[in-house]
């Protein structure tokens, strides 16, 4: 599974993963056609693909590649609906980074 490691990140980690695939859990702030703005401890621009059906205010988990301008090209997205505990999701990302050896194989 080398090379396909997709760490969970929040906005602040994006700069370390340019050109790599990441997973982001965030809240949809804005939808503009093919573009969406997500909030994951910071604002993230997401370039959506055809089948992404997102709703403003809902939680979403997107897996995508990080562009040099720190926006994400979404490969697949999953609508999480309401009632998402963003705190928990952010904590997971944090802890994963603290315990790199367990979670990241690079």
């Amino acid at each position, binding site marked *: 599974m080398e090379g396909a490691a997709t760490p969970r990140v929040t906005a602040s980690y994006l700069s370390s993963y340019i050109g790599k695939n990441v997973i982001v859990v965030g809240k949809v702030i804005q939808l503009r056609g093919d573009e969406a703005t997500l909030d994951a401890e910071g604002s993230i621009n997401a370039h959506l693909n055809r089948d992404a059906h997102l709703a403003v205010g809902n939680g979403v988990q997107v897996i995508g590649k990080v562009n040099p301008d720190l926006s994400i090209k979404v490969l697949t997205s999953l609508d999480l609906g309401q009632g998402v*505990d963003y*705190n*928990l999701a952010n*904590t*997971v990302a944090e*802890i994963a980074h*603290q315990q790199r050896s367990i979670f990241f194989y690079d």
Partner: protein
Amino acid sequence: MAAERLTPGVIESLFTDPDRTAREFPVPVVQCLQIKPLGAGAGAGNERYRLVLSDMRHYVQCMLATQKNNLIHEGILQRGSILKMKEYQAQYVKGKSILIVLDIEVMPELGQPDKIGEPKGIEMPTAPPQQNTTIGGAGFYGAKSEPTQETKTQVQRQINRGNGGGGGGAGDRHAGTLYPIEALSMYSHKWTIKARVTQKSDIKTWHKQSGEGKLFSVNLLDESGEIRATGFNEQVDQFYEMLQEGNVYYISTPCKVQLAKKQFTNLPNDYELTFDRETLIEKAEDQSSVPQVRYNFCNIQELNDVEKDATVDVIGVLKDVEEVTQIVSKSTQKPYDKRELTLVDDTGYSVRVTVWGKVATSFDAAPDTVVAFKGTKVGDFGGRSLSLLSSGTMTVDPDIPEAHRLKGWYDSSGRNDSFATHSNLASAGAVTGRKEDLKTISQVKEEGLGMGDQTDYFTVKATIVHIKQENFCYPACLNQGCNKKVTNDMGDGWRCEKCNQTHPRPEYRYVMSLSVNDHTGQMWLSCFDDTGRVIMGGKTADQLMELKENDEQAVVAEFEEANCRKLTFRVRAKTDTFGDQSRIRYSVLSAAPLDYKSEGHKLADLIKQMSV
């Protein structure tokens, strides 16, 4: 003239107001109308004389102290003699007021005139309290006067004097002896209380082989506290009509003070009263000086700290009122009306209150009104719940400062607030009231939970790895509430020994053995029907048995489905002994699916602790 020397009115006065008498008539002068020895077959030394003394207005029976017998023997004291009473005591014996005369001085210079004036007997219509005084024994009354006796007679006298009497100030007849309810105890021999009847029960009758009887009870309230009083049999007839709810009465001894039987009352007093035949109850003219109802409110947030089964008063705004429902008590088969309400207050918490019987059926308070409850029992259903006791009361929109404050709060902001309930404090599936002690399987084994005599309770988060498919259920009695195993020995029906009935078919109930694991170890749990259903995804044992008969494979598939599910189990550990062998049995009290959010947070906390 002898008549001038006499002190008229003193006899009445010394029974009614001894203090005043002592001041104004330090040495009453009376005439002796009659002398009679008390025979009684006593020896010479026990001779006592009964006198009738008069002050021209009243006459009274008296006993002469034996040390003064010589006056009679020597003829100094005769019928008609005028004498000064230097020392005396007013008493009641056998329903009559009498005077014990300890020291007298005869005035022989006045001779022995005939009866002066038209003295009448001193009136004593109400039966005074029984006394243990024994007349006789020289010097017995030489002992210091018993002030309690004095004041007792004073009280009785004042009552007899009719309404609007003088005595003390502030229209308070019993000024000297008015006790606050809080001060009542089994050691107070005579007292008077002025209290309002806050509640009067119906007359209840009972029939037992030892006899039958009737009783009624009232709750009495004054500024200091509350106490319950009960009247039995004759006292029901005596007092039931007289005592009206809402009125203020003077109640005086004799009246029994006993330790309170807490199961019959919601009042916080250690004692309770029992009316005697001789108990004196009188309506007070001043109906307003006693408070109406006393509340001791607990706000809803604090309820969480109150123990289960305690009695509290609460006040809040009705957020929600449900319909009246009827449930049949499992134990007595009697139907009960009940209604659930939701009460909120400005601590931001809400609680369910259940009212019963008449209060439920005649309930007409609309949501958003302020309601006060007195006498609710705290339960731990769903965290914390309240149930109105039969002895409790509910008042809609009471005119007290707390109510006004709540109304003000509700109108301004409370209406739109969302309220926390105490059930939020528990993680899904656990019952508050028992501490949520989460253990890992290895901890359970290491700490030996359930070993020895005690029963231990703990919570464990584990994954089912295997469900025993043999004997996963047993046939049980169809009767509601009876889960006894039924047998089909005869082949023509399933018989229940407990209910003594035979059913055409049984109700199958789960009794499963599960093997569960967590990251620390493995253990076997046994669970019953309610938990079984949760684990099998809602399927009842009946359904599974049916499936088994039709399609064996399907049953296996069901068990597979249920397998590998992670749940939070609340477990009871107890040691069972069969002969020499004892094993710890872990039985599941409840099982619930994981609440991922709270579990996630718990894990996050654990991890944070690690890295610190």
